[in-house]
């Protein structure tokens, strides 16, 4: 079991709210330590508030989901079906599986009580009957840490029956997954939690806020989103919304990886820094003698940017923008204006030593492996794209393969049950669109040389 080491160097540009104590060498995961640092004061405060007020604070904070979709959390909670009389469930999505993302594991392994407090405040707000943490199978230590923390919290009447004497009862169940990326999709997660194959449900009608776990209204939120709830209650929604920038409030933990000198995670205020800040100032820039080739701005599902690209257009408020990669703000709206998305906040840097077709082949292998297989376009298309890029990497590329890949991607996106269709189509579509010359050049590559590099794929 991998331990999660504490990061010794914290960059001055970071504003650490969620990770305030996580990398403190003196800080441990026990409830005593958490209480010493003022923990669970917000839960006490929330337990005395009317549930509607907690929901309103979260809505006022403009907190957007941190799992990848960026859907406003307060709006999701307001969509909960209260009329049916069915019990309400809360699920924390701890199935962090988007390649390049490693932020939730920091929160789970280093400050579990923050998550538990955030979940219990949410449980109060939505009057949940029971809460679940669905944690990916590859984090067994995290599961143990969470279960121990919940047991401690239960002993302190912060979780379980009659919380803080209010009469409200809600327990937290830690449920381990079994190593499938599609269990990060909220309805796939719900199916898996119910004990079935993780086949995402068709939406409509199966929006979890209406019909979710056990066909009851369910809120599914990401780990980081739920941790933020505690701080929203502490500051108040309006005050929280002053952190960051409008539409991108609060802080986000950005995960920088790839061919930079200083990969790692950085908690930054929304919209106050750029990709250039992240890659060059915090990440230490590229390795000696290397030039930038590509940046994947938000986890491998996000559309790729080619070094030297410029993005132009008008922002929501009408102001024109003209950005290079380095200028794109680190928030939700910036990457979207630049034709991609911030996704889970995972930034992957690729320098000119990498064969971009191999990068795509690796990504395609992941999505083909993880496709649940329920619907035709993603099931067959993801594997077909993987077979094509594997063949190209193995030395048998043809000039028409670039067009074929793009066409297959177009046939998948928008036609599937869940967003995995877009997730497997966007990389191919964007890599071919931005790096077409590399793909067509592959056809002229010497097959012997290509085969000798023997890239091992999933």
């Amino acid at each position, binding site marked *: 079991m991998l331990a999660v080491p504490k990061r010794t160097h914290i960059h001055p540009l970071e504003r650490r709210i969620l990770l305030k104590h996580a990398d403190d060498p003196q800080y441990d995961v026990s409830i005593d330590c958490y209480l010493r640092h003022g923990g669970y004061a917000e839960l006490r405060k929330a337990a005395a508030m009317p549930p509607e007020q907690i929901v309103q604070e979260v809505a006022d904070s403009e907190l957007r989901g941190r799992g990848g979709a960026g859907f406003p959390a307060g709006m999701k909670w307001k969509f909960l079906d209260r009329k049916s009389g069915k019990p309400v469930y809360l699920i924390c999505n701890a199935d962090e599986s988007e390649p390049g993302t490693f932020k939730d594991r920091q929160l789970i392994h280093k400050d579990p009580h923050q998550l538990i407090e955030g979940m219990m405040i949410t449980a109060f707000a939505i009057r949940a009957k029971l809460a679940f943490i669905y944690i990916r199978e590859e984090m067994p230590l995290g599961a143990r840490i969470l279960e121990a923390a919940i047991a401690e919290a239960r002993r302190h009447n912060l979780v379980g029956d009659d919380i803080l004497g209010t009469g409200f009862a809600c327990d937290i169940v830690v449920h381990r997954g079994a190593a*499938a990326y599609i269990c990060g999709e909220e309805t796939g997660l719900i199916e898996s939690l119910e004990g079935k*194959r993780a*086949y995402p449900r*068709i939406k*409509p*009608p199966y929006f979890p806020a209406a019909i979710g776990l056990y066909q009851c209204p369910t809120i599914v939120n990401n780990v980081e989103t739920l941790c933020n709830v505690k701080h929203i209650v502490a500051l108040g929604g309006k005050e929280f919304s002053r952190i960051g920038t409008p539409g991108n409030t609060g802080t986000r933990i950005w995960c920088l990886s790839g061919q930079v000198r200083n990969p790692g995670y950085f908690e930054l205020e929304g919209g106050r820094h750029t990709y250039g800040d992240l890659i060059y100032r915090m990440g230490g820039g590229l390795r000696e003698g290397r030039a930038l080739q590509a940046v994947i701005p938000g986890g491998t599902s996000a559309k790729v940017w080619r070094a030297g690209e410029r993005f132009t257009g008008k922002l929501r408020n009408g102001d024109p923008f003209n950005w290079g990669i380095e200028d794109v703000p680190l928030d939700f709206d910036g990457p979207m204006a630049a034709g991609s998305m911030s996704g889970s906040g995972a930034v992957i840097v690729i320098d000119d030593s990498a064969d971009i077709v191999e990068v795509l082949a690796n990504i395609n292998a992941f999505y*083909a*492996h*993880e*496709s*649940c*297989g*329920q*619907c*035709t*376009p993603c*099931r*067959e*298309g*993801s*594997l*077909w794209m993987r*077979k*094509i890029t594997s*063949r190209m990497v193995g030395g048998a590329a043809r000039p028409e393969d670039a067009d*074929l890949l793009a*066409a297959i991607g177009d*046939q*998948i996106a*928008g*036609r*599937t*049950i869940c967003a995995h269709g877009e997730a497997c189509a966007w990389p191919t579509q964007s890599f071919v669109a931005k790096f077409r010359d590399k793909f067509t050049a592959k056809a002229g590559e010497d097959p012997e040389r290509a085969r000798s590099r023997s890239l091992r794929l999933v």
Partner: protein
Amino acid sequence: MSEQQHNDTVTVFIDGQPAVVPAGCNVVDAAALAGREIPHYCYHPKLSVSGNCRMCLVEVGTPGRDRSTGEPLRDEDGGVQILWIPKPVIACATAVVEGMHVRTDSEAVRSCREGVMEFLLVNHPLDCPICDQAGECRLQEYATDYGRGYSRFIEQKNVKPKRTRLGPRVILDDERCILCSRCVRFCEEIAKDPVLGFTDRGSYTTLTAFPGRELDNNYSLNTVDICPVGALTSTDFRFRMRVWFLKETPSIDTESSVGCNTLVASREGRIYRITPRRNDAVNDTWMPDSGRVLYKQVDADNRIAACAIDGRPAGPDAAVAEAARLLRAGRAAIIGSGRLSVEEQYLLRRIRDALGAGTPARLVARHGEGDGLLLSADRNPNTRGALLTGLINALPSAELADLRAAIEAGEVDTLLAAGEDPAAAGIPCELLKRVKLVYLGSHHDECTQHAAVELPLLTVFEKAGTFVNQQFRVQKFAQAAPGPAGTLPGLQLFTRLLQALNPDAAVAPSPDAVWDAMAREAPEFAGMRFADIPPEGALVSGARFAGLPFVEGPGLHFEPAGKREAR
């Protein structure tokens, strides 16, 4: 935009054409009602919606309304502006709403269909030349109608288990499977035997039975019917005949009083398979496996194919005359059958009347355990026909105890058994030797050796007629194959015997003529004509028999009337 016609219909626009459809139905069914096909694989009207094949993607829009005034938004021509949903949606999971617009033939929809077809074919084996489904395969049909027409796939196709035994009657070819999950849903929802499931993931997903189990329930062959491709095939039908040579004749399953509607597939007088026929009031689209093998009786070795007098072959005229002579010679008793058609039972009743109103007539009961679905506890398909025609007025018993007693007491000289073996009905062969047996039967059995006259009876596949099922529904069946050479066609066997016994009681040997006669006599059949009975059958009143202790329990589309004693 028109107002709703009634409470339960809405008006939708399929490719610009208005259509009035039931409220709440899905767009696939709505388009079908409007005469447009929306291709689909995984959707089935009798199963839950899974929405995973993505073949039925269509463009859907609703008329725009101004948010503040509620007035319809207008476009330049003054027509109502339609707000189209930006992504295509699956028609099977979209319920119609008033004023909905659907495009089934736009550029986007055609592109979706080409895409799905291409994806389904990339890993699909090129088995058409050896695949049973050819000719009735949706992959073939939609590839022709909606596919791109050429392949761009040059990689290696996935390899999965081929021609494996999924169960005693079903063979599975995993490579052909398009993972529509119809069979999985059927076994879970209809057969209530969730034995099938998927293993592995992504494009390597494989259909299989749960470890240690087989697909062996009595509805397993329905999965073969609903499988859109040749992944699930019938072991019995495998490689026997190409479906485009087969003629399909509507018929009725004679296995029990459910009366499942069937299609009998034959070529040049030989039957190859039986499949269910849709009837939303009786059997939906299903039938039990045990009813499908009944066609094998047509070619059985012990088929009675010719008339015989005292065991020696005879012509039909002589045999009928001899039978009539024997019946008139002394006191007669009749054993009828719940497997005879309504027309045959009526003619048998006329024969009984010709012999004297006091002539006893009995049916032989055949009981089994009802399965709560499509196999009822009454294993005779037409007990109610015998009641309605007046052949019997009480429910039959399995053992003909009183008839046996009568024979033992010497009160019976001639026994007419039509469609039933007296020896199997509790009258031992020793006892049969004391009477003259006139046997109308389709197969030789224990009693035949003692028969004074043998007259061949046609099986249900070789004649036309009607049965009355447990719902008191009159259902027609048509002739699929000619009877063996030497048999009298249609109802001639009965009409000739009747005429020989009573020349004044002549009835033409067609179901039409028999129904004209019956309509005058039985109150429930008043005003009915054989030709007018619709394909889905016609309900008649069972009120006259409401007090009888029918044995059937609840089943699909059937609730026994009134309270029954606990058995």
